[in-house]
């Protein structure tokens, strides 16, 4: 038996013994996700236990070094773990911007002290993070951000406003882009971490067209931040931000956006008796299955270190456009049932609300137009792009 086979057998046995039955059922909605953090209201004892047990093994972040709370697994072992989890239908123990976005940036740019301080907490789901990037005047043109960060001797002083801060009202800490110099647009930005309970931080939810509200406006009024909470060099935060955005795009394209086909959709909605709609679904299936093959290939490329740095942009663009199309088809297939906003029959308006939610896919994390611009510039090398 190879080491990997032994690992698989041990993993299977451990998961079998430790994954609660409730955590082996499909998530019904975003509400079933476990976010962790100081104030997270666990839906069940099983949800909390599953996060804690996985965190203790470092398996919420299996490929991070064990010294920082990770599992220290090789890429091959990580793949085995994911396969074994999938085979019993185990839910992800933790959904976390700390894992998918901040963690990789800290591993690359953080000081040893920052890594020791933050990474294990992230791995164990003890701190919930939000991302302070966009501002009212700086969305896609992110480097135009204005939130001011002054050196006040023994601390930083932050003043300004962020927008579209996902779950800012529920997060414990924020990773935030601030302006420490106005001399250059990209060169005056720093990457700052601070506690959302700091004096002078306030948030206000933004009600969306879907009726959901994961997003907030976030205000900073004379917020004092300790000096050692800048990641990377002062005024060099743009490098950290870009690196993190690459991971955000990978996460978005890897979240299953665009995977799966409309066939399952058609099955869930009963027979599609309209030949025009059936043709649309058939063509969508082709696109969806082809994109799933691309996703698999992209992940293999990432693991082999062969992916072009701009490929996450291509994946994000293609995946989110496909996801929007899927939900347009869901609405078409669902007919008037899918239009019901609150009823039992529509599972509380699930189809309509998710359809509306997907319209943000091609805006958040860099608009589709921004992604196309990146591909044009960095892969196709078109002039002036």
């Amino acid at each position, binding site marked *: 038996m190879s080491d990997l086979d032994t690992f698989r057998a041990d993993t299977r046995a451990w998961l079998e013994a430790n994954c609660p039955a409730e955590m082996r059922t499909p998530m019904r909605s975003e509400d079933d996700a476990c976010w962790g953090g100081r104030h997270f209201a666990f839906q069940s004892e099983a949800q909390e236990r599953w996060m804690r047990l996985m965190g203790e093994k470092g398996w919420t972040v299996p490929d991070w070094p064990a010294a920082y709370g990770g599992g220290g697994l090789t890429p091959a072992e990580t793949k085995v773990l994911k396969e074994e989890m999938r085979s019993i239908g185990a839910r992800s123990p933790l959904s976390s911007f700390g894992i998918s976005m901040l963690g990789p940036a800290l591993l690359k740019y953080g000081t040893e002290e920052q890594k020791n301080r933050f990474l294990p907490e992230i791995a164990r789901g003890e701190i919930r993070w939000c991302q302070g990037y966009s501002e009212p005047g700086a969305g896609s043109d992110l480097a135009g951000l204005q939130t001011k960060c002054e050196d006040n001797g023994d601390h930083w002083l932050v003043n300004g406003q962020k927008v579209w801060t996902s779950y800012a009202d529920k997060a414990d800490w924020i990773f935030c882009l601030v302006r420490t110099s106005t001399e250059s647009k990209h060169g005056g930005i720093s990457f700052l971490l601070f506690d959302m309970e700091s004096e002078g931080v306030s948030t206000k939810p933004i009600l969306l067209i879907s009726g959901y509200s994961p997003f907030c406006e976030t205000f900073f009024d004379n917020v004092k931040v300790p000096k050692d909470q800048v990641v990377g060099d002062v005024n060099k935060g743009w490098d950290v931000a870009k690196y993190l955005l690459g991971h955000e795009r990978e996460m978005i394209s890897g979240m299953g956006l665009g995977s799966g*086909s409309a*066939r399952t959709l058609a099955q869930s909605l009963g027979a599609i008796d309209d030949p025009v709609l*059936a*043709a649309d*679904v*058939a*063509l969508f*299936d*082709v*696109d969806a*299955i*082809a*994109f799933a*093959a*691309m996703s*698999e*290939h*992209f992940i*293999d*490329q990432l693991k*082999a270190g*062969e992916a072009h740095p701009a490929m996450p942009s*291509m994946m994000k*663009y*293609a995946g989110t456009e496909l996801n929007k199309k899927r939900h347009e088809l869901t609405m078409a297939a669902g007919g008037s049932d899918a239009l019901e906003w609150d009823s039992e029959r529509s599972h509380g308006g699930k189809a309509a609300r998710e359809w509306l939610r997907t319209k943000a896919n091609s805006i958040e994390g860099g608009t589709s*137009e921004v*992604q*196309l*611009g990146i*591909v*044009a510039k960095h*892969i*196709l*090398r*078109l*002039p*002036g*792009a």
Partner: protein
Amino acid sequence: MILTDDQRQLADMARTFLAEEGTIKKQLRHWRDIGCKDGFGHGLWKQMAELGLTGLAIPEEAGGLGLGATEAALVMEEVGRNLTPSPFLTTSIVAVEALKGSEQGKRWFPGILSGDTVAAFAVDEGPHHRPRAIALEAKRSGNGFALSGSKQFVVHGASADLLIVAARTGGSAGESDGLTLFAVPRDAAGMTIENVALADSSKAARISFENVAVDADAVIGEVDGGWEPLRRAMRAGRTGAAAELVGLATGASDMTVDYLKQRKQFGKLIGEFQVLQHRAAHLFGEIEIARAVTLKAAELLDKGDAQAGMMTHVAKAKAGRVSALAVQEAVQMHGGIGMTDEHDIGLYMKREKVLDALFGDSSYHARMVQVTG
């Protein structure tokens, strides 16, 4: 999927060789302009034999390289990139797949290996690919069969030494049961072969069969059990054609992106216009996706995976749609020059149309994805 070192070497070899010898100028335009009846060059076919490419998929014990659909796809992509006219797809991929494991293989593999034999695949009987609708009749007669009926869109049919013919020995049109595959030598009596030039200057035949007598041993596989080898051959052919489409789309797109960097209008390089940048970037992504799913289909075929058939439908449909977009964008972005015969970009558009139709067009395969998926 990440390619192995051996696969990368093969792809590099095919790329270098075809970029040198398989060019539009040396092959496609040359044979077209002199009015060659074959539409391809036997010299190049011989060279491909010397490199081992003609026998790429022939089992090692029969003298071939014993490679699979993935390697075939890598070669086809280079064929597509250069628009190289060649019987590689019909002979080395489709016919070899049909003949694999049959007695007929022993007879025909040596000629394919040496580059002396060209094979064609006769399935379609109407203007659309409908393999279950095959009506060409094979009646038992004496020691063998007599074939009557007609085929069209038989690529290289007039140049081929061997025709793989799908015929009906039982059942009725619309059924996959009752089909039988025959290996028919070119000189069989009773065939009338009309050599037809297609839009891309390739040649396909319209063939009528009048009591064409073949021996019982011309049957590939089992009588009435032809669907299995036919389906295997079509899957190989579809994946090969999809790979050629991906290569063609890449070639057209590369040529177009280069043009965007050179052509000035309104005092600017046209590649500076955001609307063209975004369309080019969209196309880039679509081609990558088509390539990924084509290689996925090849990988599943090589593994004998149960999903292989479905994935070949997806690959052919996706590659067809993406390459259609690629050539439309290519001609449009080239502007007027793209409409001239002198410029190569229009040749990509013509080839794309033919390849999309070969072994079923995008609409056919999208429907099959729904039916079989």
